[in-house]
């Protein structure tokens, strides 16, 4: 991780929107999310093979929004967003947004790479803009967001997390709110174009730590960072 830091001296001429760990990721090509931050689109020519085996994509700057309160379910319905019917389940919208139900009254909507999060950006962020008992959360800033991809993801996570995340015990659409490498983390199993994925949401200020831990765990499977283009 130290070498990663040193190899990425970053000048201040970047966009104002930056993740806490942006210096530790690099690639050939970037794209801009609807939030304004730079996301790696392509790391190198091996992205496509790596993503199917053991890949890691940083989606920390892809827009997302969370809401908590008794009024959230009806609010999201009014926005045309279908929600899972019980806690710790996730659903994918037709446009590719991932809708997480983290408790009876807490929901997160994670932006889609298809529109770089534009739809989610249109959802309100201020509690003055939402109905009563529907409080926006701060997950865009409080959490880093990574996607582990490929056939080895369960083995990778077995090195970091005590929960059984193999597909037979933790199928697509399941959520574990647990500890990953001693850091609180939301783990969501989903899949994109047949590629198994774990969406990981953990403390943004520990993003660099988590990134380092995940890359270290991927090494055994010759895995590493991939760009967002692989999942579109």
């Amino acid at each position, binding site marked *: 991780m130290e070498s990663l*830091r040193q190899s990425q001296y*970053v000048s*201040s001429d970047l966009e*104002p*929107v*930056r*993740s*806490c*760990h942006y*210096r530790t990721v690099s690639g050939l090509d970037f794209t801009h999310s609807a*939030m*304004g*931050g730079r996301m790696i689109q392509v790391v190198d020519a091996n992205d496509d093979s790596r993503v199917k085996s053991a890949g890691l994509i940083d989606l920390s*700057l892809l827009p997302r929004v969370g809401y*908590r*309160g008794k009024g959230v379910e009806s609010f999201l319905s009014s926005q045309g967003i279908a929600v899972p019917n019980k806690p710790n389940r996730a659903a994918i919208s037709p446009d590719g947004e991932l809708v997480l139900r983290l408790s009876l009254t807490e929901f997160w909507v994670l932006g889609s790479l298809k529109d770089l999060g534009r739809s989610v950006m249109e959802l309100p962020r201020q*509690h*003055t803009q939402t109905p009563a*008992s529907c*409080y926006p*959360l*701060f997950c*865009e*800033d*409080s*959490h880093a967001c990574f996607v582990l991809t490929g056939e080895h993801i369960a*083995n990778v996570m*077995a*090195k*970091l*997390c*005590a*929960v*059984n995340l*193999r597909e*037979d*015990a933790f199928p697509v659409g399941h959520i574990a709110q647990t500890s990953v*490498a*001693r*850091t609180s983390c939301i783990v969501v199993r989903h899949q994109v174009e047949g590629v198994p994925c774990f969406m990981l949401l953990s*403390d*943004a*200020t*520990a993003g*660099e*730590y988590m990134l380092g*831990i995940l890359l*270290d765990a991927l090494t055994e499977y010759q895995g590493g960072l991939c760009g967002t283009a692989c999942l579109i």
Partner: protein
Amino acid sequence: MNNPAPVFRDRLPEPMGLMLERQKTVEFIFEGERITGIKGDTLGSALLANQQWVWSRSFKYHRPRGPLTLAGHDANSLVQLPNEPNALADRVPAIDGLDVTGQNVNGSVKKDKDAVLNHFGRFMPVGFYYRAFYKPKGVWDWWEKQIRVKAGLGIADLKFKPEYYDKAFLHHDLVVVGSGPAGMMAALKAADAGADVLLLEEHTLLGGSLAYSEFSDCNNPEQLRQELMAKVRQHANITVMTEAVCNAWFTDNWLPVLQGKRLYKVRAKQCIMVTGAYEQHVVFRGNDIPGVIFSSAVMRLMKLYAVKPGERAAVLTGNEDGYLTALMLNRQGIQLCAVIDMRQASELSHTEKNLVDQLHQKGVQVRFGQTVYEAKGSQRLEFIEVRAITSPGEVSASLETIPCDLLCMSAGYMPAYQLICQAGGQLSYDDQRAAFSLRNLPDNLYIAGSVNGIHRLSAVMKDGERAAIEALNALELSDEAVPDVFCDQKVNFHWPIFKHPKGKDFVDFDEDLQVKDIVNATRMGYRDIQLVKRFSTVGMGPSQGRHSALPTARLVAKATQRTVSETGVTTARPPLTPEKLAYMAGRGFDPYRLTSMHYRHLELGAKMIPAGLWMRPAFYPKEGQRLTGSAASPLLLQARNIRNACIENESLHVRTKVGLIDVSTLGGIELRGPDAAELMNRIYTFGFLKQPVGKTRYAVLTNEQGVVIDDGVACRFDEDHFYVTATTTGVDNVYRLMTFWNTQWQLDVDITNVSSAYAAVNLAGPDSRKVLEGLTDLDLSREGFPYLACREGFLNVPGCEHKIPARFLRVGFVGELGYELHVPSRYGEVLWDILMAAGQPFDIKPFGVETQRLLRLEKGHIIIGQDTDGMSHPSEVSLGWAVSKKKPYFNGCRAVDIVMKRPQTRKLVGFRLSAEYLVQNQKPEEGHIVLSDTGSDSSITGNVTSCEYSPTANAIIGMAYVGIEQSEEGGQFPIRVDGGSVVMASVVSLPFYDKEQTRQEA
């Protein structure tokens, strides 16, 4: 290399040598000699193929020791590798170029100068080290040096470069520990029924005893092994791990499994222990001479490694395995000079009589009712002395000496009980079978095969299936009736112990313990088996009692006139096998948190210090003053001087111009909803119901003991919206406490911990308003945005259209005009950049946490955790003003009432000392004690909590707890400083700086 390579002896023909790739050779060095082996050899098998029978020296008497079990179950095979001590020669693969030496030797394994100790055994009786080295008083200091030189086995390589070890979790319906015939049958039965099975095998080959042993009810065990193995390997529901040691059992079938450089933490819904049984030795004089070996070890040597174990072999047995070994030796062309059965011929079973007949047909006669009374040889077995057994443990006077170079012994078996006993299983001794069996297994744990006392192969396989059925029923994958499995094969000779008047009849090879050592321990009053263990160290060596537990139990039982069951065996504790510290110390997880401005601090050369999981800038040394490594230690004068100079300069800069500090680590909690004010009012000591919108208020939190545990600033942005800060390390506790209480109160409020969501800075100093004016449209005038006000607005990013949403707090922690700016963390680095750029015309400079501590000290503000302790109530720290007496309740209010009504015994006060004490190196430090007076019988009344030299005050200033009678302003109290001298500090009123508050309210 001292010697030319020895002649490479021919190996036995196939099918012997299951492990070998005969076309490939390997070469390594042992004790300076080149050893040539075949790929697949262990170090041990290659050594034996080269006639190297002395591998090590014994722990106490330095007797030559060679192979015993060839299964990695004994201490005789411990050798030294270049960077690993205590490696098992019979487990470590032979690889090219490895440099191997013996250990625990003074010289070489063949010529060990310490072998002279063998002749001084009478001066080293059991427990001698407990008694010999302590008298006369003081002599221990001399002895300790000598003992430390001699003690221990291998040598740790302190220059060893750490390797990557890690951990992983596994989850399975069923874990089968052991892949012998019972284990494979259990795995297959369970997997066929749909269970997800993990099959563990500590060795390289699957099959357990099928891989090396002979069976009276199976003509071709290798064929059976191949068939079972093929089914296991092909089964989709079975995961196989070889060279994987289940090293313990913990509650709920939590199994640590060591494989390679990884510790697997395995969770099993059900577990079947098929751990087998350890063959037991016969106790007689010289039973440790190289060439005296277990029957099973000889079978392994031939079957797995095709090594011819000797030229003239004798077999000493108490069961049919000795006959099977003799037949195997005979088939491989090894001369059998004696087959000795300790039993009478009449005790043999029908099967065993058939085996005797087979030997007769090959011209081998069997001696019944006899034993080996003594083995002789210096570096290798040369003779055995055979005597008739007259009664248990007693032999006739007549003797016969038989020359031989190999003695295979088989006295019976001890269940591999350790893991099962860790799980709560209990051993009980069956006198009729002269064997221990396991009972009282916990739920979800089963045993099968020889560990369950089942030895006949056909029964062993049925027992594996029986255990699987029990596990499947518990998993609700089957409702099959559990069959009974019966086995009448008796494997243990009832008393294979033949005490010799000259000793060296070893019970425990690890610790050189003889029969008399165990018996003498009981005579000295250590009658309990646990005490015998501790006094004699029996079972405490690397083999952990695998071979000594049973004879020790028998000896102690006899010596104390109890049954073996009453005597029992010592407690088996984890780990089962020696566990490298690397498994524990390998890759760990040490989370850290970085603010979004972290790298800006590094770029500016900040001295970073830890704060909980965070790293924070302490101060910013100039180029040339940035010390690293040990040079940066605060114990060094240069480092201290740089620190002091930095914080003095930074503090003066804030007092005179403008400074910027990253306070992103501050906790932040968002409270929204109609009952937000009510929650604040119930949690914190102050009143918050009437707090005006747009204003901040100091918030103090007490616990249910009335102790101050946190503080922060509560900002009211709307009637139903509070944003309250908390201390860096306290916020999680505050958040937990709020949610805990509101689960009961059910107030209509949402509580969210937003500490990571916000980055924050404190822009402080007389020029701070000027810096900020160009960046926001807010009215920053004294009237428009007064002291203690808060606002929500935007910061403009120069050069682009971006506007950063920000929260502005006019607070005065450092006592100057200042603004705390809180922005979403994605904008944190840009916030730092634009403020540093906008502040350039005003000579803005960053300041660190250490400087902030001085600045707040000058203002008399306390830091929770530094100026408070586990007893500090609001009055003691002069926060009585922040406790509302009008409201009915707040967290800890009842305790606060009680402690504040009690007579106060101490108080936190400000104190001042002349700067001259700096020169005299007598500045008080945090933690220095406050005394009641300067007399020799003075008592401790308090301690210093904060102390710094203040360039603004040109004095040493600080805060300290003092006795209540010492707290009066103008008084003096003594502080004992480094070196033991005492300085007198003057009590002064707080703050030290700007008592009129004009600067922060500017």
